[in-house]
């Protein structure tokens, strides 16, 4: 007997779970496929989770979701080889009844989210890799083939929530393969330490959390970012740079991570920790210009698979959850007026997404990825070095008149990058930021 679903969701990550939950809770017959042994077993994130976007899906998630720490402090460090210059923002306002941001551990969080999806009525099939989209004679997607015996399943619409390196969308020609210059490869380790030690080292108490984002020479002239996120009893520590930069420099991601851990500003924060996992994952960094066609006859694409990731603000999970929810809402609307899941009808998803922060934010930074990519040695090496040097010159009291120090600092910047280069970088950065 052929079983027909209203919707098949491929993937049980942030976007797939948001879509499957929204669809199932409105009574649609949903099948969700996940290739991992359990949801989350293939997924890697920093990970900061943004409450607002989950609240729109599961308002009372705080009752039982596995959350690590709510964030009260964020630090941005600009690093050279021996020092860092930091901007810290900390506020007791973040100790609110319903905190805004939390750290999470994806394997645990995804399991919880998936349980909610099942409770909402969806059928979730793990250990099942979708291998191909099935189309009818007119090219409309009508189901997916899986690696299970006799494994073809049918649905009116397929939600592709397969993540950044998903095979289905690229193989079916629905989207291009991400290019080496539009994806970063990140490596990450889990460093375990007692809860009190983390509290002391990061200056937080109870469930409060602190995160550090680090740029500069730790990425060895590549466009990249390092991070240290506090969980209850562990620190997630990682670094990611563009794949194209790695290929050009032939740096090893794991060696880069080891060097970062050895940086004198970071070493004391993780001293004595026990490492329990080493993970790697791609991050879509192409932004607005890399977004593929989002819908077609019988399909929509959501989350990282659609490159919906804001690399500038390091937000991805919230864009994934929102695009999954919005796609589901569009499908529900089409179904409620008895419309077929055609390209024309599913265009509603794009219209609704255009109206959300997801597309508005990505549009705002549409020129950023290209700028950082083509200029990485200035932004990730020269400027951080100059900044550190300027700070040190400023702090060292050695009898040099202040006016001379300022002149030297200005000269150092101009020597490194020429007056014209500095002005042009500033202007391009401002334009891309606008």
């Amino acid at each position: 007997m052929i079983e027909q679903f209203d919707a098949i969701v491929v993937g049980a990550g942030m976007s797939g779970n948001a879509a499957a939950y929204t669809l199932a809770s409105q009574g649609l017959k949903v099948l969700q496929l996940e290739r991992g042994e359990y949801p989350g077993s293939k997924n890697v994130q920093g990970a900061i989770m943004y409450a607002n976007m989950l609240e729109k899906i599961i308002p009372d998630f705080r009752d039982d979701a596995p959350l690590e720490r709510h964030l009260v402090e964020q630090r941005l460090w600009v690093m050279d080889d021996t020092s860092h210059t930091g901007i810290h923002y900390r506020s007791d306002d973040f100790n609110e009844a319903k905190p805004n941001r939390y750290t999470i551990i994806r394997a645990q969080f995804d399991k919880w989210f998936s349980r909610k999806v099942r409770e909402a009525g969806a059928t979730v099939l793990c250990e099942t890799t979708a291998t191909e989209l099935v189309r009818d004679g007119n090219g409309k997607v009508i189901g997916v083939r899986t690696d299970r015996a006799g494994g073809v399943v049918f649905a009116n619409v397929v939600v592709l929530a397969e993540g950044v390196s998903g095979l289905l969308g690229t193989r079916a020609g629905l989207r291009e393969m991400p290019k080496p210059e539009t994806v970063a490869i990140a490596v990450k380790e889990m460093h375990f330490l007692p809860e009190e030690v983390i509290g002391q080292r990061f200056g937080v108490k109870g469930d409060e959390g602190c995160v550090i984002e680090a740029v500069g020479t730790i990425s060895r002239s590549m466009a990249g970012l390092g991070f240290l996120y506090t969980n209850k009893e562990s620190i997630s520590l990682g670094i990611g740079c563009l794949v194209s930069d790695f290929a050009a420099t032939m740096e090893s991601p794991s060696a880069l991570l080891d060097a970062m851990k050895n940086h004198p500003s970071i070493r004391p924060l993780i001293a004595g920790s026990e490492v329990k996992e080493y993970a790697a994952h791609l991050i879509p960094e192409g932004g607005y210009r890399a977004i593929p066609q989002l819908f077609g006859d019988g399909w929509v694409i959501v989350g990282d698979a659609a490159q919906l990731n804001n690399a500038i603000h390091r937000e991805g999970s919230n864009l994934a959850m929102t695009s999954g929810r919005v796609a589901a809402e569009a499908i529900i609307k089409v179904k409620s007026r008895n419309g077929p899941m055609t390209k024309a009808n599913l265009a509603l998803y794009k219209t609704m997404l255009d109206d959300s922060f997801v597309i508005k934010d990505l549009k705002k930074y549409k020129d950023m990825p290209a700028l950082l990519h083509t200029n990485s040695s200035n932004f990730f090496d020269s400027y951080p070095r100059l900044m550190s040097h300027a700070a040190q010159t400023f702090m060292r009291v050695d009898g040099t008149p202040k006016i001379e120090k300022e002149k030297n600092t200005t000269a150092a910047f101009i020597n490194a990058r020429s007056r014209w280069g500095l002005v042009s970088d500033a202007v391009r950065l401002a334009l891309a930021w606008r």
Partner: protein
Amino acid sequence: MTIAVTKVRVEDKLYQNRYLVDSGRPHIIVRPHDKPSANLLALTYVCPAKCYELNDKGQVEITADGCMECGTCRILCEKGGDIEWNYPRGGFGVLFKFG
């Protein structure tokens, strides 16, 4: 407790991870070649699990057992035909406990 800041070999890092290896069914295959392309060669450094290695004939070989399924090699080498890339069968491969 181990001291985290000493340099750790990638093999030892992977040892921390859980895998369910699908014996005899590698999910990534390097196509036979005389001389590796620049991207294929780069993978001997850039693969975060050090799955790619040069043999003594100067060709690139893969042992995909420690693969974290990140997709970096696919992004660099699938298009040019250097490799054939698939996900492992459902349930097999890396199993992140934390992710």
